[in-house]
């Protein structure tokens, strides 16, 4: 029998992991994105590299996502 409060807590924890890391990633991407657009105004050929640089902070939210996945698919079923 799964403890409903415990399960809910795990759900919330997963949500916080993704949500908070998403905000953090967004903050990083904001600065890089605007700088990349600035370079593109000078040199349109930078588009590809700019796009890749902009997604670099995405690692943060991906780690959040990994934590959430482990919580939901590994920890929760074992409860």
């Amino acid at each position: 029998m799964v403890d409903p409060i415990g399960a809910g807590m795990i759900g919330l924890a997963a949500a916080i992991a993704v949500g908070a890391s998403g905000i953090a990633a967004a903050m990083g991407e904001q600065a890089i994105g605007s700088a990349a657009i600035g370079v593109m105004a000078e040199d349109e050929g930078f588009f590809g590299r700019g796009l890749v640089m902009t997604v670099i902070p995405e690692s943060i939210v991906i780690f959040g996502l990994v934590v959430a996945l482990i919580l939901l698919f590994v920890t929760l079923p074992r409860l």
Partner: protein
Amino acid sequence: MFKPQEMSKVIIAGTKDYMKAAIDVLYAHDVVHITEFSEESEDFKIGTPYPEATKLSEQAISLRSIANYLNIKGKEDVSTKYTVDSLETTFNEKIERLNFEVSKVIQKISELDSQIKDFTDKNKQLDPIKSFDIPLEMYRGYESIAVFVGLIKGQLSIDNITTDYYLESTPYSRGNVIALFVPKAFETEVFTALQEQNLAAISIPEIEGVPKELISEFDVKVSGLESERETTRADLKKLQQEYIDYILALDEYLLIETQKAEAPLNFATTKNTFIVEGWIPTKRLEQVQGDIDDTTNGQCVLGIDKSEAAAVEKVPIALENPIPTKPYEVFIKAFSLPKFNEIDPTTFMFFWYPFFFGLMLGDIGYGITVVAISAIVRWKIKSRGLRALAGVGIYAGVVSIVFGFIYNEFFGVEVFGERGLLSFIYAYPTIPRFDNVLNLLIVTMVLGIIHLSLGYVVGFKNEYTQHGLKHAVYTKLSWLLILYGGVIAIVIILPQLTRGSGISFSSGLVAGLALAVIGVIFLILGEGVIGIAELPSLLSNVLSYTRLVSIGVASAGIALAVNKLSDALFISKGGFFLILGALMLIAGHAINTALGILDSGLQSLRLHYVEFFTKFYRGGGLKYKPFGFERKYTEEK
């Protein structure tokens, strides 16, 4: 395959009498990358362009302006090619005639434009007062009467000043248009009163007649002029169709001739001789050498510079890969071209990029969509960059389909097996993603370790060729030792920690730690103590590969959500709701496909650029730009 094209440094020298012939040969071959000569000295001066260069570029400019008027962009496909000879003899007078014909039509159009504008402007002026039946000449020429025409807010109230006036008024826009006639004596007072009502004066055109009649008269004129303008534009279109072949060919011819005429600007010259330095793909060397010799009767020679100095100079880089892997060059070019003694990573990306992409997207339906979109792009679009990306897309889509079978997913729906859509088909051992998150996380970290190791091995090779064995051991082998030592140690320690049994030192653990310590020592020897600061990046590099699962599961989650929602909200209700449900499915999966392509594509690229390339790749190679031109609209005899 792993190396850029082999280049030889060449020096071409000869007497100035044969410079033009030499330029023609080099240009026609389109293979020699000329190094600009910039350091003038007492003996060697920068060459002067041939005198026709100025004339040619002037003609090119007037031709471009004609092309601009005729709306010729310069990339059109045309059927006829012109020979260089036929262009050479005719182009001067032809440009003159074209200029005359086109500017005649253009001038006519602009005259018509200004006439049309004139009448429409007048109509705009007359529009507010069109309901007043006062002829325009009645608004002016009085000695004792002042006239105010304009737009005011609210109703006119000047009765406290005088009642001796004539007023026409009608609502217009957000106020009233008035035409007010008052004795001159009250002019200033009335004007002040009107200003308080925000008078916006309307100027009356200096023509005669009743506004309403004038407006309809002008409308007729405008439509007449407009149809004339249409016929003139059709004339222009006719001119465009008639001359497009010729203009494109001539533009190309002028560009080529200008480039040839200006070529000596990159040469070193003395009073009677010239010298060109450059690079040529080694396999083309003999052919060009022979041709120069033949054409100039041995008055110009092409020699190879094998000096030490040449070897360390900036070698231009032309990537050389077999056709199947060629599309992946676009990623290398976007990052940075390799140096001449560096390994070209295109072939690695050919294997790993679609593999990572498919691992993330992993859905039969989405895979088919990616292949279909890529095939259409490749078939319909001419842009080289997009075609290359589409080529990559086809590989990536096919691998996604393969992983779709492994994950057993079709647009997020289970296909085979007892829970699947096609339950009558026997379920081979599939790996559903939602049930195997932990296993997949481990698998991706292992993949990451393999990928990083490959990076270090390639890095070892690069360092070995560039700086020798010792440097390669210190900077690359060190990291490999740390990586594997660390992995062994963590694999042994982690289960002990999760069991809470405390760490017991086994021989495996000691061996792992020893490897790592040796690695760290090498690292410090190679890069100094500061190298230790880089150690944590290794862990985050390995963990970074877990994105292969998390992005995949997130994308599969969105697909599942789209399916479940459209089923619960619409499809289960049947009837009309089926249509809504279908629309939601299409829109949802379209968005998820776009997200899936963008995210899987970018993250796979990122794993290469950030995690993989940093282990071995420096780049910074110079782009190979051969002196010459690929003719499209013209042909040489």
